[in-house]
């Protein structure tokens, strides 16, 4: 219950920030993707199941609230959260740089996947080069934001973690 609440609060906050603060911040034609950052962070912290749920919920919320083609972000982030969560299980490194690298790589791949799906559905009309550029820039921006966001999320996740064994 507490986790659901936490997830809702975090997702709504991320959405609000994405549509207000970062709506104005358009660096070189691209913006940070907070929902990607959120999904990857939760996947690192909580594992593949939590990553997939966060990605799905956040993606759906973003799709419905931001008047995007619905479902594509949800699909992307579900898979992304799951994949990063799985990947995290095979990496044993206490390095603080690891989340940054995972966020950067995950954002890049996720953006490309999103672009590919949107393109296949005829919802996206940009060149591959542009897509690559946006993906790379978003990855960089998210990586920059990671040291600011990740510790907050970790504290929130640890605080909300119940004593009971997690089923997901």
């Amino acid at each position, binding site marked *: 219950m507490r986790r659901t609440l936490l997830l809702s609060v975090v997702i709504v906050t991320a959405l*609000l920030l994405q549509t*207000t603060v970062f709506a104005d911040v358009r660096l070189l034609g691209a913006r940070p993707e907070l929902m990607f950052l959120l999904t990857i962070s939760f996947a690192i912290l909580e594992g593949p*199941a939590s990553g997939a749920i966060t990605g799905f919920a956040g993606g759906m919320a973003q799709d419905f609230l931001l008047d995007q083609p619905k479902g*594509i972000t949800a699909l992307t982030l579900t898979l992304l959260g799951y994949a990063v969560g799985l990947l995290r299980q095979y990496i044993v490194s206490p390095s603080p740089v690891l989340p940054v690298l995972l966020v950067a790589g995950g954002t890049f791949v996720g953006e490309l996947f999103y672009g590919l799906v949107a393109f296949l559905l005829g919802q996206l009309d940009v060149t591959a080069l542009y897509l690559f550029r946006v993906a790379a820039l978003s990855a960089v921006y998210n990586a920059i934001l990671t040291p600011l966001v990740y510790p907050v999320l970790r504290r929130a996740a640890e605080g909300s973690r119940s004593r009971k064994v997690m089923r997901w």
Partner: protein
Amino acid sequence: MALQNRARSTRLLVVTLVSISLVTITVDYREGDSGPLASAGNTALALISPLQQVVSKVTHPIGNFFSTLVRLPSIRRENEDLKDRVATLEEQINTATADLNRLHQLEGLLGLQESIGPKVQTTAAQVISSGVSNFEWTIEIDKGSDQGIGIDMPVVAPAGLVGHVVRVSANASVVQLIIDPDSAVAGRLDVTGKTGLLTGAGEQDMRMGLVDTTTDVGPDERVVTAGYRIPGVATSLYPPNVLIGTVSRVLPDSAALEKFITVRPAVDFSTLDLVLVVLSDGTG
């Protein structure tokens, strides 16, 4: 065993979520903008937009700050463009001011022309350059014999007498200023009507000679050209009653045969720009 179960349930979860996503995509894709999903999106948007407004109000300055940082290069470029524009506009303003000055000068010339007399033919000329020599006080004007200018024609400016033409080429002429040491102008004291001869002294004030010692001369008295006109015998170079200058100094030297008077020219020769050449005196 538990771990495997967990992995399996996770996989199931992911498959479910992906399926839901795909269904959503399909439904949305087939229905377009009119379906229930679109209206659900609109409802969600309506719900969150007040929140957005509140947050936006708080964070807009922050966003502005960052976007300003990001846009610094373009702002700098804009700044340069604007500077260029300011420079251009300032130049235009200067040109306009210069034009206005020129207009005033031309108006002055027009008034001068009218004061000399409607019959007198004159032509306006632009000063091209001042004399190059330290010992000659001349100016060059942009009108010459092609415009009907001849030697000895008087040249005036709105402020007063300038000099007379000493050299003429096709499209330019040289004017000897009245402050040139070689120049001599017959002048008349305004108050007493006594005449004298004004000779140039270069940068210093002109000397007025041949004035009787008994003449009562006060400072700041105006000196105008004396137009001698003895028909058939001689005519003065300059038209009468053109201001030459004002008396600046009178030496109280009663022992001398003539008064020592200096006259400050009315025309500032260093800023001379437009002058009027008197082509004929209106009699011929």
